[in-house]
């Protein structure tokens, strides 16, 4: 694995940023200041960051309704994201998208997507563009265990394989599609085998472990960046919060999340691994934690006090004015 100290520090910072962003939103949601649906990514950070640390702004990703982690991992501005979630005029999408529709085309971020299974076909198209450009860029879609049951995902798998486009399907099995367990809803259980049925190589990863995801994505890119067509990364993980904020999660056993947080947390695992190997000392990581906390706090304060859009903005950014 070719991760130098700077790369390790960046990966840790991004994972910590996602975590603190989501933990803060979980708290702030209770104040009633944030409108609409919010789906938090906390717990799955190793997947978004393990995948996106391989990508540049010229690679594309298509995200899901649980998209904050993918956005941050792909380099979207945290302050702009927070403002978007608060529905502010200078949010990343001017307050017109909200939590479920954060996009930043300049960063190669094709958008979070509130339609489950909406992203993979779009990423196939971005992969067609990448193939035609011939510069070795790829398109990546993120899909959960729930989304994997949508027909669009199966269509995208087939079409990407038929067209041999540089497309990487990242599947994040967090155990639940909304309020229903993957143990019930995922026929065949091993999603990887489903994908292999399309002739697409699948690289399995422990979604609690940044290094495992990073390595799986490296192998997937070896296929896709070199003209080998699509590949897939299949990571198992968990989410720490409900399907949406306010979900009482009464489908989960008591203590389930606490046990994951205690025993399998990706940030704890990363910290243990790099400090025990003597690569980075704990004080350096503590300093990053403090910096990130400050950054999220500043973003939150700024978002709360930022100006909302004016009513006339409802009529801008349209294709046709009537």
């Amino acid at each position, binding site marked *: 694995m070719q991760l130098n100290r700077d790369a390790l520090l960046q990966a840790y910072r991004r994972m910590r940023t996602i975590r603190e962003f989501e933990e803060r939103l979980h708290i702030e949601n209770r104040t009633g200041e944030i409108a609409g649906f919010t789906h938090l990514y906390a717990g799955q950070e190793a997947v978004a960051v393990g995948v996106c640390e391989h990508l540049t702004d010229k690679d594309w990703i298509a995200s899901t309704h649980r998209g904050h982690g993918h956005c941050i991992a792909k380099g979207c501005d945290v302050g702009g994201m927070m403002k978007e979630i608060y529905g502010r005029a200078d949010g990343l999408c001017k307050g*017109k998208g909200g939590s479920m529709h954060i996009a930043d085309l300049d960063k190669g971020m*094709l958008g979070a997507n509130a339609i489950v299974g909406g992203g993979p076909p779009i990423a196939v*198209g971005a992969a*067609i563009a990448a193939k035609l450009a011939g510069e070795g860029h790829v398109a990546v879609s993120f899909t959960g265990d729930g989304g994997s049951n949508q027909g669009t995902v199966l269509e995208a798998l087939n079409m990407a394989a*038929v067209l041999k486009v540089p497309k990487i399907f990242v599947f994040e099995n967090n155990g639940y599609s909304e309020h229903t367990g993957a143990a019930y809803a995922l026929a065949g259980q091993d999603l990887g085998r489903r994908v292999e049925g399309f002739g697409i190589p699948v690289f399995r990863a422990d979604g609690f472990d940044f290094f495992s995801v990073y390595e799986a994505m490296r192998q997937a890119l070896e296929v896709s960046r070199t003209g080998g067509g699509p590949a897939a990364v299949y990571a198992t993980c968990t989410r720490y919060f409900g399907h949406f904020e306010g979900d009482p999660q009464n489908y989960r056993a008591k203590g389930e999340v606490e046990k994951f947080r205690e025993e399998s947390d990706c940030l704890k695992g990363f910290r243990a691994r790099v400090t025990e190997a003597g690569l980075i000392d704990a004080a350096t990581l503590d300093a990053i934690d403090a910096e990130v906390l400050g950054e999220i706090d500043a973003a939150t304060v700024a978002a709360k006090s930022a100006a909302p859009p004016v009513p006339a903005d409802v009529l801008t950014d349209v294709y*046709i004015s009537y």
Partner: protein
Amino acid sequence: MPVITLREALNEALHLEMARDPRVIVLGEDVSGGAGGTSGQRDAAGGIFGVTKGLIHKFGDGRVIDTPISESCIIGAANGAALAGLRPVAELMFADFVGVAMDQIFNQAAKFRYMFGGKARTPLVIRMSFGAGMNCAAQHSQTIYPFMTAVPGLKVVVPSNPYDAKGLLLTAIRDDDPVVFFEHKALYSRKGEVPEGDYAIPFGEAALVREGEHATIVALGRMVPFAEKALEKLNADGITCDLIDPRTTSPLDEETILESVSNTGRLVVVDESPPRCSVASDIAAIVAQKGFRDLKAPIQIVTAPHTPVPFARELERAYVPGPAQIEAAVRKVLADG
């Protein structure tokens, strides 16, 4: 000027624009055809109506992409390709298949620019055949532009002749927004004069097909030649009408329609779709709101009935509005005031 069919006019537009702009790609089921077949012959279809014929030989399978039968993914891939800088022209074969691809059309393509705060461009054309008259039955014959027109974020084009088809398709491909392009399957062989070179027809500009004084007829697609036929009979009785072809239902050239009605005082709107929430009812509503004082008689709409499209020749003939109904509607607005 060369006389060619509407099919050939569309084909010319695609050839011209693919040659001019390397970002233009074509994708869909059998847009070339023959891939994976035992004859080894590519372009075995060239699109089931022949509109994309010959493109693969000129532009290769990197830009002329035969897809599996996956309508959602065809439109989804066109969306992603558009966001990533290409200018895809996706073919859905039959407008009825919009049902399979609807999410990618109305939740995704139509929303990107607005939902992403104005930053996304989605230069995408979705071509599809529509309309009854070929006995293709209930799931291959519908006229569905009304509900595409109702979606904020989609532009909707309905050409009625070869000249307009070519000029409007060139505009559609060059447009930075999603355009749904409806081709009436009974008009593919309609012939007309079409200049050889490049010309673009702007969206939102209606064509005044005929000028007259007694009534205004607004018609779309195949209803335009039907209205022309009706006018032959009416003219023989000394009745003349403005015949307006809006060409695009979104944006809609309200001004031309309202101005004509202010001259004639009578309006007949002809639309092949069923009557409720149709383009006919929409235009009637606009004129009732904005041109009420110009009207001498109640507006008449001529539409298909509120039923699925039937199969049998006799039933389909009864379903599709024709010259006789248009003629009767004009006589009625004249009798009414």
